[in-house]
């Protein structure tokens, strides 16, 4: 079978396998969720560290809004942490996702729906951060994992479409590496979620 067809098939099987391993998850772990209590204590800690600094400066720099924004920023970026992305997409899938965004940024994909999809999936992590849905993990997978896998798939297919033998080969090696990694090293534990 030609690599052109083999690569997407292996990738889909790989994504399916990764999703299956995630079925044991019941929720994302606490680091992904916003907590006003954590923010409150964090703010108190910051103020306590100030010592003799003038109260005006303390008020300007250490307030609920700043702590809230910084906290959300930090939690949001955990959804784009490399080790997290490798766990939900595999290494090959991550390169597919990077290619997807490369294509969007360089305007090599001129499809408004794909553009919209690319922007929308960047918003989805907010659903989990604020725990808008407390449904079972299957729904979270549909919202927070599968869309990224789709984007990665689009990125991969576009890479293959370029018809360059070298990129086929490199991507194929990456894919073999990812498959080997998952089956030989068992893909570590799913540290981003709680189980049981």
């Amino acid at each position, binding site marked *: 079978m030609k690599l052109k067809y083999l690569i997407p098939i292996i990738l889909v099987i790989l994504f399916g396998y990764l999703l299956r391993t995630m079925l044991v998850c019941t929720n994302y772990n606490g680091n992904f969720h916003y907590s006003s209590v954590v923010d409150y204590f964090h703010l108190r800690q*910051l103020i306590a*560290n*100030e*010592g003799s*600094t003038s109260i005006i*400066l303390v008020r300007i*720099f250490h307030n609920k809004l*700043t702590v809230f924004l*910084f906290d959300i*920023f*930090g939690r949001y*970026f*955990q959804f*784009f*942490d*490399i*080790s997290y992305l*490798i766990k939900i997409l595999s*290494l090959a899938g*991550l390169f597919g996702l990077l290619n997807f965004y*490369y294509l969007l*940024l*360089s*305007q090599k994909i001129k499809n408004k729906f794909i553009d919209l999809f690319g922007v929308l999936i960047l918003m989805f992590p907010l659903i989990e951060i604020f725990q808008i849905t407390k449904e079972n993990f299957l729904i979270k997978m549909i919202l927070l994992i599968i869309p990224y896998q789709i984007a990665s798939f689009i990125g991969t297919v576009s890479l293959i479409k370029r018809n360059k033998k070298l990129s086929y080969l490199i991507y194929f090696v*990456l894919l073999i*590496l*990812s498959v*080997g*990694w998952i089956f*030989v*090293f*068992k893909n*570590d534990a799913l540290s981003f979620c709680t189980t049981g």
Partner: protein
Amino acid sequence: MIPYPKLLLLFWMFRFIRQNRYIPILIVVILAFILRVYSVSKLPPGLYDDEVAIGYNAYSILTKGTDEYGTPFPLTFRSFDDYKLPGYIYLDTIPIALFGKNAFAVRLPSVISGTLTVLFLYLFLENLLSLEFEPSKKKFRNLPLLSAFILAILPWHIQFSRAAYESVVAVCFFMIGCWQFVVYYKNKKIPYLLISLFFFTLASYTYHSFRILTPIAFLSIFYLLFIKKFIKVKNLFLIALYVLILNLPLLIFTFGSHGTSRFLQTSTFTKQALPESIQQIIPTSTQKIPTAAVPQPQFSIQALLAYPFVYLQNFLSFFSLEELFVRGNDNVRFYSSSEFGFLFRWQLPFLIVGLMVLLREKSKILKKMVLSMFFITPAAVAIAASPNALHALLLVIPFSIIIALGINDTGQNSFRWVKLIFIGIIILGIYETGLYFHLYLSDYRNSYTVFWGGAQEKLVKEVTKYSKYYPTIVVNETYLSNEKIYFLFYNDKLRPIFVDSSWQEPKSWNGKPFLYVRYPLAIPANSGMKLLENITLDIPSKNTVAQIIEL
């Protein structure tokens, strides 16, 4: 209302700055210098062991012509068996001769190089852009200045420029090399090429990661010279010979046992550095080398699979948004506040826009130069445990340029809503930058003094005070690592005896009481120990870091 004469003065100043093209960059360089030099001897709070080792070796070279082990004018400094490269240490002899053996003198080369990097980035970009664009072309006119400004205020670069990190000096040398090469590319005058190659070489004599980055630069330069046929083949060989002669000592070191030992200490492929799940599966053997016995993974199918995977994971980790914008590295000396990463959060939108501009840009030279630095740097240093912000410090250059490209493009956008968003981000940016400097000046000292060896100077001073009464001083290095170098640096006349955890505390030394320095522990009754002093950190929490005891 501003009075009329003052308004006139402001107007005149503004016009003066606009008309003199070097005034803005001068202001940026002065800003960069102030941000790097302000209170540098006190902040970071204390000298950490590598800085002290650099300072003492520089002092030793200056006074005795040898390193701390007595080797005359060495090419590499054994130090803590990490074989430091000579660039920073020899450079540091100048400030130590001028200002003495203190924190300011140790850090000065880093401060100055960090400041000059800002200037060389400007000069490099000015020349690079002039290769492709007319100076009058508006599109990228402000890019060199904006990039220099971004680098001047970048937390990543400021943090490292304020401590004695060899990497900062190496980046500066590397930028001089890049700038001189672009000047050569423009003028085709051989001396510029020779200067460029010389500075690239200096970078590789200054910091270990440049032993990989510089050869890549050399290969790219020779490839370009060969393809573009700027130089006759015969002359090309002569230049290659020049490079070889300059680099020969370093090549001998690199492939010698000490070079290999350094590689094994930092490599991500040694057994300890590999992720735990892999460590258990890959069979290993211990390869004995003079200075380290590190378990090496044996060749196996598992290793064949794990090596490229770990390498690629390391490579990608340099672009982790969490590391870049939120958390920074695990090494607390690498970031300047627990609230900040290496870049400001406000820079993220500009980074994205900058990448868009760069990827769509038709200008080949700018695109190739910036993207190659952006990807080759992490690719070269990913063989070590990653992400390591110090190893990949050269990344500050492409990041500054890309963020500046984003600001430049957004600022020139004529849409009203884009302008509003732009102004909004800039206001947030001013606030966040202010918060960063506020935390650096207030919170950083309180939170991180202990990690910077903040009480070591005080410890040596106190021991010196007591040394008049006690002929023997014993220092137990358990939990107090590398104490020897601190004693050498702060008072090399004291000759303490250094012991480790296996040492049994005797009641006296040749029948006489002696001074005993150790990590703070409870003193048991009837142990014969008399606590003379607790060494505490000069921060509100007053943590005790060492005890001086009479035994």
